[in-house]
């Protein structure tokens, strides 16, 4: 259940270590001394299985995950090797931030891995535009139909599919401590935004200092509030306009309403002291399971994260999961979801035809099957492969997995995380300005002005 945000948190320490190097890396990058990792070996020592089928060695770069994911990726590569004489798949696991930098370097040096991990969206689109990523198939390819339709949106560009899902879907929910709700006599999780505000006030009045916990150091946790509120107020088209870089699209009234709602929540004292100086992790989790906070808005990896922190809290069914409250009278559909639709493997363009052939074979053989769906469920994920519901019902933690799968299957719109959709150049000012909104040091109007300005300079080609 790991994805960009979770991994980002988990590898913050590694990221910190690499950061100092990264600064000097700028000068190394600029001097063009590209340190490409492991060039792909062409050809093979093995005997070809058939003359018509090309054989090749391919390399696959994953973003490293703690837990079982690394293991089953390696196992899949070995399985493919033994089933296809003459082919070889070598896998490499790299921590989140170094991965992004290494991939960038390898791409610009024209020595990319054959397949590389991707979150889709704007970042992948950058590689496609630069001619560095190749399509894996068209939307009508047979393997495409084995996935839930909403899961391929982030990797589909001009009717070509550029990525195959390799990890489960990660929608965002509210997670809450049932015992805290009981203690403060709140019978159920709030259904509407105004109920949420009144519940926060009630918690505060009764002496709970921080009803909602959040770790907004990097800025993505606060972004989930903006994503949901914008969708609830104005519907998906608000962000669609932003994503297509329409001039002044941040000025949509829905954005302003959403930002005002956020500041209302902050002014009510909903979040813990120092929420902007800590990242998602064991400290924020501890607030929830020790009962110092009542709830948190988080991707569904929160379940596995809490399982690692305080197993009994989850297994004794104290953890509740609820959809984001509705904003009555507004345009958005209350069943819409926000989050990361899936994690993917994408294919590099500057590799040999034989390697592309073997890479497609590897993806189709190993990642589109019911067998793979079973493997994902075993490791606590919610697969985006059709027909996974049957396995989920029998799984541990099915009380979280089944509602997640149902929510994803029935969501009219699954909004892919804005930061990933927009790409790096816009998500940096987005994090910065939104964190100022959360700290009440910037008004909604100032935010809108700053983001319109940032978008103009990105569209201007800077």
């Amino acid at each position, binding site marked *: 259940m790991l994805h960009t945000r979770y991994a980002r948190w988990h590898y913050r320490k590694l990221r910190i270590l690499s950061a100092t190097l990264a600064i000097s890396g700028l000068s190394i990058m600029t001097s063009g001394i590209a340190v490409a990792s492991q060039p792909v070996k062409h050809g093979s020592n093995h005997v070809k299985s058939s003359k018509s089928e090309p054989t090749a060695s391919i390399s696959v770069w994953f973003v490293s995950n703690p837990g079982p994911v690394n293991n089953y990726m390696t196992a899949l590569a070995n399985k493919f090797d033994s089933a296809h004489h003459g082919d070889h798949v070598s896998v490499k696991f790299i921590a989140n931030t170094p991965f992004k930098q290494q991939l960038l370097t390898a791409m610009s040096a024209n020595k990319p891995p054959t397949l590389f991990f991707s979150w889709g969206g704007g970042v992948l689109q*950058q590689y496609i535009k630069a001619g560095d990523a190749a399509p894996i198939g068209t939307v009508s390819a047979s393997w495409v139909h084995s996935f839930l339709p909403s899961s391929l949106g982030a990797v589909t560009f001009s009717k070509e599919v550029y990525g195959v899902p390799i990890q489960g879907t990660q929608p965002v929910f509210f997670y809450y401590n049932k015992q805290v709700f009981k203690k403060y006599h709140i019978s159920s999780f709030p259904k509407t935004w105004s109920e949420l505000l009144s519940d926060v006030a009630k918690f505060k009045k009764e002496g709970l200092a921080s009803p909602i916990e959040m770790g907004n150091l990097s800025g993505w946790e606060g972004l989930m509030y903006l994503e949901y509120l914008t969708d609830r107020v104005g519907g998906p088209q608000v962000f669609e306009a932003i994503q297509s870089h329409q001039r002044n699209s941040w000025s949509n009234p829905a954005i302003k309403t959403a930002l005002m709602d956020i500041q209302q929540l902050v002014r009510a004292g909903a979040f813990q002291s120092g929420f902007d100086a800590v990242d998602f992790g064991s400290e924020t989790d501890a607030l929830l399971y020790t009962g110092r906070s009542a709830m948190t808005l988080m991707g569904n990896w929160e379940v596995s994260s809490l399982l690692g922190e305080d197993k009994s809290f989850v297994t004794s069914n104290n953890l509740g999961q609820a959809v984001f409250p509705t904003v009555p009278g507004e345009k958005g559909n209350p069943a819409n979801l926000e989050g990361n639709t899936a994690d993917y493997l994408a294919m590099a363009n500057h590799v040999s035809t034989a390697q592309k052939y073997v890479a497609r074979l590897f993806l189709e053989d190993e990642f589109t099957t019911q067998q793979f769906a079973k493997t994902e469920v075993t490791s606590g994920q919610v697969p985006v492969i059709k027909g996974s519901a049957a396995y989920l019902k029998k799984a541990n933690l099915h009380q979280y997995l089944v509602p997640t799968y149902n929510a994803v299957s029935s969501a009219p719109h699954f909004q892919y995380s804005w930061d990933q959709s927009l790409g790096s150049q816009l998500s940096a000012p987005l994090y910065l300005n939104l964190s100022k909104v959360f700290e009440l040091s910037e008004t909604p109007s100032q935010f809108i002005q700053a983001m319109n300005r940032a978008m103009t300079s990105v569209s201007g080609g800077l």
Partner: protein
Amino acid sequence: MLGKSEYSLPPSIKKRNSRRGDLPKKVVGSYWKADLVGLMPTMALYVFLVLLPIVIAGLLSLYSWNGVGSLRFSGFANWDAFFHDPIAAHSLEVTIVLALVSWAIQTPISMALGFFIAGKQRYRTVYAALYLLPLLLSTVGIGLVWQALLDPNFGGLAWLAQNAGLSFLQQNWLGSNSLALWTIIVLIAWQFIPFHTLLYQMGRRQVPNVLYEAASIDGATKWKQFVHITLPQLRYTIVVSSTLMLVGSLTYFDMIYVLTDGGPGDTTRVLSLDMYQAAFVANTFGYASVLAVVLGVIGVVVALLLVRFTGFSSLSSQREGIA
């Protein structure tokens, strides 16, 4: 000119006889080659790792590049954006405040500690060892430890606030707009004062005691001795220490990155962090190069000014006339 007899002449005469006033050409030539060979590896490293990147960063600042795809020449657009970028202006301001305040805090404390451990008091070395401890720790380690201590919910200071009655310690140290930068400045001081203490200790030990003895015979107070003997004698130590502090603070990055990542908002976003964000978060390498060049130029200018206005470049003796 003088034939074989040249080699029998004493060096002073040789020098006088040589038309250019230096060693004979033959000898110079052979040294020159040896020097060149000896310097080659260092020069190559210096050219490839220092000079070339500087030149390329300058060139790259004229292009827009997201790290993939091709470079696109954009003239002075990045520079124009820099001069109209409120975030960069703010970062510059934060950087200057950080550098000046750090200097103002660290200099007197380092000096006082340096003089103390240069003295002859009992247990001096025990104290010295304690003062120097932060110098031995890695910055990232220090950052992570302080982050844990300063956490307002589970941190050590919050614990003291709740259990030892020290309620003023219950602060949002790193998450408050008014406190975060000052917290960082204090932590940087805590980390670097030991190093500057060492400098001042060495400086103080080299001041000849006869000066103080003579002054006290003439009836000079301790304060007068400090103003008229210690400070002038330590002039170059002060210049070295101040240059390191100011230029060091200009490029300071790691602990801020660990502790606040420039936050809350952009309260602690120094220019080096802004550069990192522009390069490796926003992937705008052209713009990041502008920031790198600006940072480099400011650093060089500050260092040159310090050297120029303190007479450090002339390297004259501070002890002329002292036996």
